Protein backbone atom coordinates (compact mmCIF):
# COMPACT_ATOMS: atom_id res chain seq x y z
CA UNK A 1 0.00 0.00 0.00
CA UNK A 2 2.86 2.36 0.78
CA UNK A 3 4.31 1.75 -2.65
CA UNK A 4 0.94 2.73 -4.11
CA UNK A 5 0.81 5.86 -2.00
CA UNK A 6 4.20 6.90 -3.32
CA UNK A 7 2.90 7.03 -6.89
CA UNK A 8 1.59 10.26 -8.35
CA UNK A 9 -2.14 10.75 -8.77
CA UNK A 10 -1.83 10.19 -12.49
CA UNK A 11 0.00 6.92 -12.00
CA UNK A 12 -2.55 5.71 -9.50
CA UNK A 13 -5.40 6.42 -11.88
CA UNK A 14 -3.49 4.79 -14.70
CA UNK A 15 -3.00 1.70 -12.58
CA UNK A 16 -6.70 1.67 -11.81
CA UNK A 17 -7.53 1.48 -15.50
CA UNK A 18 -4.96 -1.20 -16.17
CA UNK A 19 -6.50 -3.34 -13.43
CA UNK A 20 -10.02 -2.60 -14.65
CA UNK A 21 -9.40 -3.48 -18.27
CA UNK A 22 -7.44 -6.54 -17.17
CA UNK A 23 -10.37 -7.81 -15.13
CA UNK A 24 -12.85 -7.18 -17.91
CA UNK A 25 -10.63 -8.92 -20.41
CA UNK A 26 -10.33 -11.93 -18.10
CA UNK A 27 -14.10 -12.18 -17.63
CA UNK A 28 -14.70 -11.83 -21.37
CA UNK A 29 -12.17 -14.55 -22.10
CA UNK A 30 -13.78 -16.90 -19.61
CA UNK A 31 -17.21 -16.30 -21.08
CA UNK A 32 -15.92 -16.73 -24.64
CA UNK A 33 -14.16 -19.99 -23.77
CA UNK A 34 -17.22 -21.34 -22.01
CA UNK A 35 -19.47 -20.56 -24.92
CA UNK A 36 -16.94 -22.14 -27.28
CA UNK A 37 -16.97 -25.35 -25.23
CA UNK A 38 -20.70 -25.77 -25.17
CA UNK A 39 -21.87 -26.93 -28.54
CA UNK A 40 -25.33 -25.51 -29.00
CA UNK A 41 -25.73 -22.64 -31.37
CA UNK A 42 -28.83 -21.25 -29.68
CA UNK A 43 -27.99 -19.11 -26.72
CA UNK A 44 -30.21 -19.47 -23.72
CA UNK A 45 -31.92 -16.44 -22.25
CA UNK A 46 -29.50 -16.13 -19.36
CA UNK A 47 -26.49 -16.36 -21.63
CA UNK A 48 -27.84 -13.65 -23.86
CA UNK A 49 -28.48 -11.53 -20.83
CA UNK A 50 -24.95 -12.14 -19.59
CA UNK A 51 -23.53 -11.16 -22.95
CA UNK A 52 -25.62 -8.00 -22.95
CA UNK A 53 -24.47 -7.10 -19.46
CA UNK A 54 -20.88 -7.78 -20.40
CA UNK A 55 -21.11 -5.56 -23.42
CA UNK A 56 -22.65 -2.84 -21.30
CA UNK A 57 -19.76 -3.20 -18.85
CA UNK A 58 -17.25 -2.82 -21.66
CA UNK A 59 -18.98 0.24 -22.98
CA UNK A 60 -19.16 1.68 -19.48
CA UNK A 61 -15.47 1.10 -18.82
CA UNK A 62 -14.39 2.58 -22.12
CA UNK A 63 -16.58 5.61 -21.52
CA UNK A 64 -15.13 6.02 -18.06
CA UNK A 65 -11.63 5.81 -19.44
CA UNK A 66 -12.40 8.32 -22.18
CA UNK A 67 -13.92 10.71 -19.71
CA UNK A 68 -10.80 10.52 -17.59
CA UNK A 69 -8.45 10.87 -20.55
CA UNK A 70 -10.22 13.88 -21.95
CA UNK A 71 -10.17 15.96 -18.79
CA UNK A 72 -12.95 18.14 -17.39
CA UNK A 73 -14.05 19.58 -20.73
CA UNK A 74 -14.08 16.22 -22.46
CA UNK A 75 -15.88 14.51 -19.59
CA UNK A 76 -18.54 17.18 -19.53
CA UNK A 77 -19.01 16.97 -23.28
CA UNK A 78 -19.11 13.20 -23.25
CA UNK A 79 -21.76 12.99 -20.57
CA UNK A 80 -23.60 15.81 -22.30
CA UNK A 81 -23.87 13.63 -25.39
CA UNK A 82 -25.07 10.72 -23.27
CA UNK A 83 -27.67 12.93 -21.68
CA UNK A 84 -28.82 14.02 -25.11
CA UNK A 85 -29.18 10.45 -26.36
CA UNK A 86 -30.91 9.30 -23.18
CA UNK A 87 -33.35 12.19 -23.24
CA UNK A 88 -34.03 11.58 -26.93
CA UNK A 89 -34.91 8.01 -26.11
CA UNK A 90 -37.05 9.00 -23.16
CA UNK A 91 -39.00 11.61 -25.12
CA UNK A 92 -39.57 9.11 -27.92
CA UNK A 93 -41.29 6.80 -25.47
CA UNK A 94 -43.17 9.56 -23.70
CA UNK A 95 -45.53 10.19 -26.64
CA UNK A 96 -45.47 13.93 -26.47
CA UNK A 97 -48.00 16.02 -28.32
CA UNK A 98 -47.54 18.57 -31.02
CA UNK A 99 -47.97 21.50 -28.63
CA UNK A 100 -45.02 20.29 -26.56
CA UNK A 101 -42.68 21.20 -29.37
CA UNK A 102 -41.39 24.45 -27.89
CA UNK A 103 -40.92 22.93 -24.44
CA UNK A 104 -38.93 20.12 -25.97
CA UNK A 105 -36.74 22.53 -27.88
CA UNK A 106 -36.08 24.31 -24.59
CA UNK A 107 -35.23 21.01 -22.92
CA UNK A 108 -32.87 19.77 -25.62
CA UNK A 109 -31.16 22.89 -26.84
CA UNK A 110 -31.17 25.22 -23.84
CA UNK A 111 -31.51 23.31 -20.58
CA UNK A 112 -29.23 20.42 -21.46
CA UNK A 113 -26.25 22.47 -22.71
CA UNK A 114 -26.60 24.99 -19.89
CA UNK A 115 -26.60 22.32 -17.22
CA UNK A 116 -23.39 20.84 -18.59
CA UNK A 117 -21.79 24.26 -18.93
CA UNK A 118 -22.54 24.76 -15.24
CA UNK A 119 -20.85 21.46 -14.47
CA UNK A 120 -17.84 22.41 -16.56
CA UNK A 121 -17.57 25.76 -14.80
CA UNK A 122 -17.80 24.01 -11.42
CA UNK A 123 -20.54 26.40 -10.26
CA UNK A 124 -22.12 23.67 -8.21
CA UNK A 125 -24.52 25.92 -6.33
CA UNK A 126 -26.34 27.03 -9.43
CA UNK A 127 -25.92 23.58 -10.95
CA UNK A 128 -27.89 22.04 -8.07
CA UNK A 129 -30.85 24.40 -8.37
CA UNK A 130 -30.95 25.25 -12.06
CA UNK A 131 -33.24 22.41 -13.09
CA UNK A 132 -35.27 21.88 -9.89
CA UNK A 133 -36.05 25.59 -9.56
CA UNK A 134 -35.74 27.53 -12.78
CA UNK A 135 -36.49 24.91 -15.39
CA UNK A 136 -39.29 23.54 -13.28
CA UNK A 137 -41.03 26.88 -13.65
CA UNK A 138 -40.00 27.60 -17.22
CA UNK A 139 -41.34 24.42 -18.81
CA UNK A 140 -45.02 24.80 -17.79
CA UNK A 141 -44.95 28.50 -18.69
CA UNK A 142 -43.76 27.72 -22.17
CA UNK A 143 -46.23 24.89 -22.38
CA UNK A 144 -49.13 27.10 -21.34
CA UNK A 145 -48.09 29.66 -23.93
CA UNK A 146 -48.51 26.98 -26.58
CA UNK A 147 -52.22 27.18 -25.78
CA UNK A 148 -53.15 23.52 -25.52
CA UNK A 149 -54.96 22.70 -22.28
CA UNK A 150 -55.40 19.01 -23.06
CA UNK A 151 -53.58 16.74 -20.61
CA UNK A 152 -51.58 19.73 -19.51
CA UNK A 153 -50.30 18.33 -16.24
CA UNK A 154 -49.52 14.95 -17.71
CA UNK A 155 -47.54 16.37 -20.60
CA UNK A 156 -45.52 18.68 -18.41
CA UNK A 157 -44.87 15.98 -15.86
CA UNK A 158 -43.44 13.75 -18.56
CA UNK A 159 -41.07 16.38 -19.82
CA UNK A 160 -40.02 17.43 -16.32
CA UNK A 161 -39.38 13.87 -15.35
CA UNK A 162 -37.31 13.21 -18.45
CA UNK A 163 -35.19 16.29 -17.83
CA UNK A 164 -34.72 15.49 -14.18
CA UNK A 165 -33.60 11.93 -14.78
CA UNK A 166 -31.69 12.21 -18.05
CA UNK A 167 -30.11 15.63 -17.66
CA UNK A 168 -30.10 16.56 -13.99
CA UNK A 169 -29.37 13.07 -12.70
CA UNK A 170 -26.76 12.12 -15.23
CA UNK A 171 -24.95 15.46 -15.03
CA UNK A 172 -23.92 14.53 -11.49
CA UNK A 173 -21.56 11.90 -12.87
CA UNK A 174 -19.15 14.41 -14.48
CA UNK A 175 -19.75 16.66 -11.47
CA UNK A 176 -18.17 13.96 -9.33
CA UNK A 177 -15.10 14.09 -11.56
CA UNK A 178 -14.83 17.80 -10.98
CA UNK A 179 -15.76 17.97 -7.32
CA UNK A 180 -12.82 19.23 -5.28
CA UNK A 181 -12.57 17.56 -1.91
CA UNK A 182 -10.07 19.04 0.49
CA UNK A 183 -6.77 17.11 0.12
CA UNK A 184 -8.23 15.08 -2.69
CA UNK A 185 -7.49 17.24 -5.71
CA UNK A 186 -7.44 15.54 -9.09
CA UNK A 187 -8.85 12.27 -7.78
CA UNK A 188 -12.42 12.80 -8.93
CA UNK A 189 -12.07 9.84 -11.26
CA UNK A 190 -11.77 7.59 -8.22
CA UNK A 191 -15.08 8.85 -6.89
CA UNK A 192 -16.83 8.22 -10.19
CA UNK A 193 -15.19 4.82 -10.34
CA UNK A 194 -16.33 4.14 -6.78
CA UNK A 195 -19.89 5.06 -7.72
CA UNK A 196 -19.90 2.94 -10.87
CA UNK A 197 -18.46 -0.09 -9.08
CA UNK A 198 -20.86 0.03 -6.15
CA UNK A 199 -23.92 0.45 -8.36
CA UNK A 200 -22.72 -2.32 -10.67
CA UNK A 201 -22.10 -4.69 -7.74
CA UNK A 202 -25.55 -3.92 -6.37
CA UNK A 203 -27.10 -4.71 -9.75
CA UNK A 204 -25.21 -7.93 -10.29
CA UNK A 205 -25.76 -9.26 -6.77
CA UNK A 206 -29.43 -8.34 -6.86
CA UNK A 207 -29.77 -10.19 -10.15
CA UNK A 208 -28.05 -13.29 -8.77
CA UNK A 209 -29.90 -13.13 -5.47
CA UNK A 210 -33.31 -12.87 -7.11
CA UNK A 211 -32.48 -15.96 -9.16
CA UNK A 212 -31.20 -17.88 -6.16
CA UNK A 213 -33.79 -16.84 -3.61
CA UNK A 214 -36.88 -17.10 -5.77
CA UNK A 215 -38.84 -14.86 -3.45
CA UNK A 216 -42.30 -13.67 -4.20
CA UNK A 217 -41.92 -10.58 -6.38
CA UNK A 218 -43.06 -7.33 -4.79
CA UNK A 219 -44.62 -5.96 -7.94
CA UNK A 220 -45.11 -8.77 -10.39
CA UNK A 221 -46.61 -6.60 -13.08
CA UNK A 222 -43.51 -4.46 -13.21
CA UNK A 223 -40.66 -6.84 -12.55
CA UNK A 224 -40.99 -10.55 -11.97
CA UNK A 225 -37.68 -10.79 -10.17
CA UNK A 226 -37.61 -7.77 -7.88
CA UNK A 227 -37.98 -8.65 -4.20
CA UNK A 228 -37.02 -6.86 -1.01
CA UNK A 229 -34.64 -9.59 -0.01
CA UNK A 230 -32.81 -9.42 -3.33
CA UNK A 231 -32.75 -5.67 -3.25
CA UNK A 232 -31.25 -5.67 0.22
CA UNK A 233 -28.61 -8.20 -0.81
CA UNK A 234 -27.71 -5.89 -3.66
CA UNK A 235 -27.41 -2.92 -1.34
CA UNK A 236 -25.35 -4.97 1.12
CA UNK A 237 -23.02 -6.02 -1.69
CA UNK A 238 -22.66 -2.38 -2.64
CA UNK A 239 -21.78 -1.53 0.95
CA UNK A 240 -19.18 -4.28 0.98
CA UNK A 241 -17.74 -3.12 -2.34
CA UNK A 242 -17.65 0.41 -0.95
CA UNK A 243 -15.79 -0.70 2.15
CA UNK A 244 -13.30 -2.65 0.05
CA UNK A 245 -12.68 0.41 -2.12
CA UNK A 246 -12.20 2.77 0.81
CA UNK A 247 -8.55 3.35 -0.06
CA UNK A 248 -9.42 5.23 -3.24
CA UNK A 249 -11.82 7.61 -1.49
CA UNK A 250 -11.24 10.39 1.03
CA UNK A 251 -13.66 8.58 3.38
CA UNK A 252 -13.32 6.28 6.36
CA UNK A 253 -14.27 2.61 6.10
CA UNK A 254 -17.75 2.81 7.55
CA UNK A 255 -18.42 6.03 5.66
CA UNK A 256 -17.44 4.37 2.41
CA UNK A 257 -19.67 1.42 3.26
CA UNK A 258 -22.54 3.78 4.00
CA UNK A 259 -22.05 5.67 0.76
CA UNK A 260 -21.86 2.39 -1.12
CA UNK A 261 -25.08 1.23 0.51
CA UNK A 262 -26.93 4.40 -0.39
CA UNK A 263 -25.65 4.54 -3.97
CA UNK A 264 -26.23 0.84 -4.60
CA UNK A 265 -29.75 0.94 -3.20
CA UNK A 266 -30.60 4.01 -5.28
CA UNK A 267 -29.15 2.53 -8.45
CA UNK A 268 -31.13 -0.69 -8.28
CA UNK A 269 -34.28 1.21 -7.37
CA UNK A 270 -33.63 3.42 -10.37
CA UNK A 271 -33.46 0.38 -12.59
CA UNK A 272 -36.71 -0.86 -11.07
CA UNK A 273 -38.44 2.45 -11.77
CA UNK A 274 -37.19 2.42 -15.36
CA UNK A 275 -38.66 -1.03 -15.77
CA UNK A 276 -42.03 0.33 -14.71
CA UNK A 277 -41.63 3.08 -17.23
CA UNK A 278 -40.80 0.60 -19.97
CA UNK A 279 -43.87 -1.45 -19.16
CA UNK A 280 -45.96 1.69 -19.34
CA UNK A 281 -44.50 2.56 -22.73
CA UNK A 282 -45.08 -1.00 -23.94
CA UNK A 283 -41.44 -1.86 -24.49
CA UNK A 284 -39.92 -4.98 -23.02
CA UNK A 285 -36.30 -4.43 -23.90
CA UNK A 286 -34.64 -1.19 -24.62
CA UNK A 287 -31.82 -3.25 -25.96
CA UNK A 288 -31.09 -3.45 -29.62
CA UNK A 289 -34.36 -5.18 -30.42
CA UNK A 290 -36.32 -3.57 -33.18
CA UNK A 291 -38.86 -2.07 -30.86
CA UNK A 292 -41.72 0.27 -31.56
CA UNK A 293 -39.55 3.32 -31.53
CA UNK A 294 -36.28 1.83 -32.61
CA UNK A 295 -34.92 2.94 -29.27
CA UNK A 296 -31.29 2.04 -28.97
CA UNK A 297 -31.22 1.10 -25.32
CA UNK A 298 -28.90 3.67 -23.83
CA UNK A 299 -31.43 4.78 -21.24
CA UNK A 300 -31.40 1.28 -19.84
CA UNK A 301 -27.68 1.40 -19.28
CA UNK A 302 -27.51 4.78 -17.67
CA UNK A 303 -30.66 4.54 -15.55
CA UNK A 304 -28.94 3.25 -12.37
CA UNK A 305 -26.34 5.98 -12.71
CA UNK A 306 -29.01 8.63 -13.25
CA UNK A 307 -30.58 7.72 -9.93
CA UNK A 308 -27.48 6.97 -7.90
CA UNK A 309 -25.26 9.86 -9.01
CA UNK A 310 -27.26 12.78 -7.57
CA UNK A 311 -27.79 11.06 -4.24
CA UNK A 312 -24.15 10.09 -4.05
CA UNK A 313 -22.94 13.51 -5.09
CA UNK A 314 -25.04 15.45 -2.65
CA UNK A 315 -24.51 13.16 0.29
CA UNK A 316 -20.76 13.24 -0.35
CA UNK A 317 -20.81 17.00 -0.49
CA UNK A 318 -22.98 17.38 2.52
CA UNK A 319 -21.02 14.93 4.54
CA UNK A 320 -17.65 16.46 3.80
CA UNK A 321 -19.02 19.81 4.82
CA UNK A 322 -18.76 21.40 1.41
CA UNK A 323 -21.52 23.98 1.26
CA UNK A 324 -24.35 23.71 0.66
Amino acid at each position, binding site marked *: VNALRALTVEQQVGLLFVVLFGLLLAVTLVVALRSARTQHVEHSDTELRLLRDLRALWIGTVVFWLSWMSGPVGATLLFGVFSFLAL*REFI*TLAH*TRRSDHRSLILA*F*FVVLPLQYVLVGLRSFDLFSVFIPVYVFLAIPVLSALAGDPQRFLERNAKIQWGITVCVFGLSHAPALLLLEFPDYAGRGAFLLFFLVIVTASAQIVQELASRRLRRRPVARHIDRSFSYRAWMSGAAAAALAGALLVWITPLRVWEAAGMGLVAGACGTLGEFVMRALKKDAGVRFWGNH*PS*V*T*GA*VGLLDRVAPLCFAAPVFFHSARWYSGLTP
Partner: protein
Amino acid sequence: MTIAVKAMGLLVSFVARLVTGAQGHWKGCPPEALQRIYFANHQSHLDWVLIWAALPGDLRVRTRPIAARDYWTASKFKHWLTREVFHAVYVNRQRSDDQDPLEPLAEALEHGDSLVIFPEGTRSNKGEPQVFKSGLYHLAERFPAVQLIPVWIDNVQRVMPKGEVVPVPILCTATFGAPMQLQPDEDKREFLERARAAVLALRPAVT
Protein backbone atom coordinates in the same frame (compact mmCIF):
# COMPACT_ATOMS: atom_id res chain seq x y z
CA MET B 1 -17.56 13.59 -56.43
CA THR B 2 -15.98 16.65 -54.90
CA ILE B 3 -15.05 16.97 -51.23
CA ALA B 4 -17.78 19.52 -50.58
CA VAL B 5 -20.45 17.12 -51.85
CA LYS B 6 -19.08 14.27 -49.76
CA ALA B 7 -18.83 16.46 -46.67
CA MET B 8 -22.37 17.71 -47.14
CA GLY B 9 -23.64 14.17 -47.52
CA LEU B 10 -21.88 13.11 -44.34
CA LEU B 11 -23.16 16.17 -42.51
CA VAL B 12 -26.76 15.63 -43.57
CA SER B 13 -26.73 11.96 -42.61
CA PHE B 14 -24.97 12.73 -39.34
CA VAL B 15 -27.54 15.33 -38.37
CA ALA B 16 -30.37 13.04 -39.45
CA ARG B 17 -28.96 10.26 -37.28
CA LEU B 18 -28.36 12.58 -34.36
CA VAL B 19 -31.88 13.94 -34.41
CA THR B 20 -33.91 10.91 -35.49
CA GLY B 21 -31.66 7.89 -35.09
CA ALA B 22 -32.68 7.08 -38.70
CA GLN B 23 -33.06 3.40 -38.00
CA GLY B 24 -33.88 1.19 -40.95
CA HIS B 25 -35.77 -1.98 -40.15
CA TRP B 26 -35.50 -4.37 -43.08
CA LYS B 27 -38.48 -6.56 -42.34
CA GLY B 28 -39.50 -7.80 -45.75
CA CYS B 29 -36.24 -7.64 -47.69
CA PRO B 30 -32.52 -7.18 -47.10
CA PRO B 31 -30.83 -3.93 -48.13
CA GLU B 32 -29.56 -5.10 -51.52
CA ALA B 33 -28.19 -3.17 -54.46
CA LEU B 34 -31.13 -4.14 -56.67
CA GLN B 35 -33.11 -1.69 -58.71
CA ARG B 36 -36.06 -0.68 -56.58
CA ILE B 37 -38.85 1.81 -56.16
CA TYR B 38 -39.37 2.58 -52.50
CA PHE B 39 -42.81 4.02 -51.83
CA ALA B 40 -43.62 5.47 -48.42
CA ASN B 41 -46.11 7.43 -46.38
CA HIS B 42 -45.47 11.16 -46.40
CA GLN B 43 -45.82 13.20 -43.23
CA SER B 44 -42.93 15.59 -43.17
CA HIS B 45 -40.22 17.26 -45.22
CA LEU B 46 -37.74 15.04 -43.42
CA ASP B 47 -39.16 11.81 -44.86
CA TRP B 48 -36.74 11.64 -47.75
CA VAL B 49 -33.72 12.42 -45.59
CA LEU B 50 -34.76 9.74 -43.13
CA ILE B 51 -35.02 7.02 -45.79
CA TRP B 52 -31.79 8.19 -47.35
CA ALA B 53 -29.95 8.12 -44.02
CA ALA B 54 -31.40 4.70 -43.19
CA LEU B 55 -30.00 3.20 -46.41
CA PRO B 56 -26.47 1.76 -46.39
CA GLY B 57 -23.89 4.03 -48.02
CA ASP B 58 -23.53 2.13 -51.28
CA LEU B 59 -27.27 2.18 -51.89
CA ARG B 60 -27.56 5.89 -51.19
CA VAL B 61 -25.61 6.81 -54.31
CA ARG B 62 -28.02 4.98 -56.62
CA THR B 63 -31.25 5.89 -54.83
CA ARG B 64 -32.80 9.15 -55.92
CA PRO B 65 -35.63 11.34 -54.63
CA ILE B 66 -38.17 13.26 -56.67
CA ALA B 67 -37.98 17.03 -56.29
CA ALA B 68 -40.27 19.76 -57.54
CA ARG B 69 -38.25 21.69 -60.08
CA ASP B 70 -39.62 25.16 -59.35
CA TYR B 71 -38.86 24.92 -55.61
CA TRP B 72 -35.65 22.96 -55.50
CA THR B 73 -33.84 24.82 -58.26
CA ALA B 74 -34.92 28.26 -57.02
CA SER B 75 -31.69 29.06 -55.20
CA LYS B 76 -28.14 28.02 -55.96
CA PHE B 77 -27.74 26.15 -52.70
CA LYS B 78 -31.01 24.19 -53.03
CA HIS B 79 -30.15 23.27 -56.58
CA TRP B 80 -26.65 22.18 -55.61
CA LEU B 81 -27.92 20.18 -52.62
CA THR B 82 -30.58 18.30 -54.55
CA ARG B 83 -28.53 17.79 -57.69
CA GLU B 84 -25.10 16.93 -56.30
CA VAL B 85 -25.79 15.41 -52.88
CA PHE B 86 -29.15 13.72 -53.41
CA HIS B 87 -29.08 13.25 -57.21
CA ALA B 88 -32.71 14.31 -57.30
CA VAL B 89 -34.98 13.68 -60.26
CA TYR B 90 -36.70 16.97 -61.06
CA VAL B 91 -40.34 17.06 -62.05
CA ASN B 92 -42.54 19.95 -63.09
CA ARG B 93 -45.48 20.59 -60.85
CA GLN B 94 -47.47 22.40 -63.52
CA ARG B 95 -48.68 19.82 -65.94
CA SER B 96 -48.10 20.74 -69.56
CA ASP B 97 -50.12 18.94 -72.22
CA ASP B 98 -47.28 17.77 -74.38
CA GLN B 99 -45.21 16.16 -71.62
CA ASP B 100 -45.80 13.12 -69.48
CA PRO B 101 -45.01 14.10 -65.85
CA LEU B 102 -43.59 10.63 -65.25
CA GLU B 103 -41.04 10.94 -68.05
CA PRO B 104 -38.10 12.06 -65.84
CA LEU B 105 -38.81 9.16 -63.48
CA ALA B 106 -38.92 6.67 -66.30
CA GLU B 107 -35.64 8.05 -67.58
CA ALA B 108 -33.99 7.51 -64.21
CA LEU B 109 -35.31 3.96 -64.04
CA GLU B 110 -34.08 3.19 -67.53
CA HIS B 111 -30.74 4.48 -66.38
CA GLY B 112 -30.75 1.79 -63.66
CA ASP B 113 -31.31 4.02 -60.64
CA SER B 114 -33.63 3.33 -57.72
CA LEU B 115 -36.29 5.85 -56.73
CA VAL B 116 -38.05 6.92 -53.56
CA ILE B 117 -41.56 8.17 -54.15
CA PHE B 118 -44.37 9.35 -51.93
CA PRO B 119 -47.50 8.26 -53.80
CA GLU B 120 -49.83 10.33 -51.65
CA GLY B 121 -48.49 13.33 -53.53
CA THR B 122 -48.72 15.57 -50.51
CA ARG B 123 -47.94 15.50 -46.83
CA SER B 124 -50.67 14.18 -44.60
CA ASN B 125 -50.86 14.26 -40.86
CA LYS B 126 -54.01 12.29 -40.25
CA GLY B 127 -52.10 9.17 -39.27
CA GLU B 128 -53.32 6.98 -42.12
CA PRO B 129 -51.96 7.70 -45.57
CA GLN B 130 -54.30 9.22 -48.13
CA VAL B 131 -55.33 7.52 -51.34
CA PHE B 132 -52.34 6.89 -53.61
CA LYS B 133 -51.90 8.76 -56.86
CA SER B 134 -51.66 6.69 -60.01
CA GLY B 135 -47.98 7.36 -60.80
CA LEU B 136 -46.88 4.26 -58.93
CA TYR B 137 -49.20 2.12 -61.04
CA HIS B 138 -47.89 3.47 -64.31
CA LEU B 139 -44.28 2.91 -63.24
CA ALA B 140 -45.09 -0.62 -62.09
CA GLU B 141 -46.71 -1.32 -65.44
CA ARG B 142 -43.82 0.05 -67.44
CA PHE B 143 -41.00 -1.45 -65.36
CA PRO B 144 -42.15 -4.89 -64.19
CA ALA B 145 -38.57 -5.95 -63.36
CA VAL B 146 -38.10 -3.22 -60.77
CA GLN B 147 -38.91 -4.28 -57.18
CA LEU B 148 -41.57 -2.23 -55.45
CA ILE B 149 -40.78 -1.86 -51.74
CA PRO B 150 -43.36 -0.44 -49.34
CA VAL B 151 -41.91 1.69 -46.54
CA TRP B 152 -43.52 2.97 -43.38
CA ILE B 153 -41.88 5.99 -41.79
CA ASP B 154 -42.76 6.32 -38.14
CA ASN B 155 -42.60 9.21 -35.72
CA VAL B 156 -41.27 11.83 -38.13
CA GLN B 157 -44.28 14.07 -37.66
CA ARG B 158 -43.27 14.45 -34.03
CA VAL B 159 -39.79 15.64 -34.96
CA MET B 160 -40.97 18.63 -36.91
CA PRO B 161 -44.68 19.37 -36.90
CA LYS B 162 -46.06 21.63 -39.60
CA GLY B 163 -45.13 25.25 -39.06
CA GLU B 164 -42.11 24.61 -36.84
CA VAL B 165 -38.56 25.21 -37.99
CA VAL B 166 -36.41 23.62 -35.28
CA PRO B 167 -36.56 19.82 -35.14
CA VAL B 168 -36.85 18.05 -31.80
CA PRO B 169 -34.71 14.95 -31.34
CA ILE B 170 -37.01 11.92 -31.39
CA LEU B 171 -36.16 8.46 -32.62
CA CYS B 172 -37.73 7.53 -35.95
CA THR B 173 -37.77 4.33 -37.93
CA ALA B 174 -38.15 3.44 -41.56
CA THR B 175 -39.59 -0.06 -41.92
CA PHE B 176 -38.99 -1.72 -45.27
CA GLY B 177 -41.53 -4.35 -46.32
CA ALA B 178 -41.55 -7.27 -48.72
CA PRO B 179 -41.27 -6.50 -52.47
CA MET B 180 -44.59 -6.45 -54.32
CA GLN B 181 -45.52 -6.53 -57.97
CA LEU B 182 -48.36 -5.66 -60.25
CA GLN B 183 -50.52 -8.77 -60.73
CA PRO B 184 -51.48 -9.64 -64.32
CA ASP B 185 -55.24 -9.20 -63.86
CA GLU B 186 -55.09 -6.28 -61.47
CA ASP B 187 -56.56 -2.92 -62.40
CA LYS B 188 -55.27 0.43 -61.32
CA ARG B 189 -57.57 1.01 -58.37
CA GLU B 190 -57.01 -2.45 -56.91
CA PHE B 191 -53.26 -2.17 -57.23
CA LEU B 192 -53.06 1.25 -55.63
CA GLU B 193 -55.28 0.11 -52.78
CA ARG B 194 -53.11 -2.96 -52.24
CA ALA B 195 -49.96 -0.82 -52.28
CA ARG B 196 -51.43 1.52 -49.72
CA ALA B 197 -52.44 -1.42 -47.53
CA ALA B 198 -48.90 -2.81 -47.81
CA VAL B 199 -47.46 0.46 -46.50
CA LEU B 200 -50.03 0.67 -43.73
CA ALA B 201 -49.37 -2.93 -42.69
CA LEU B 202 -45.82 -1.97 -41.74
CA ARG B 203 -47.00 0.51 -39.17
CA PRO B 204 -45.83 -0.61 -35.72
CA ALA B 205 -48.66 -1.67 -33.45
CA VAL B 206 -49.92 1.23 -31.36
CA THR B 207 -49.54 0.41 -27.70
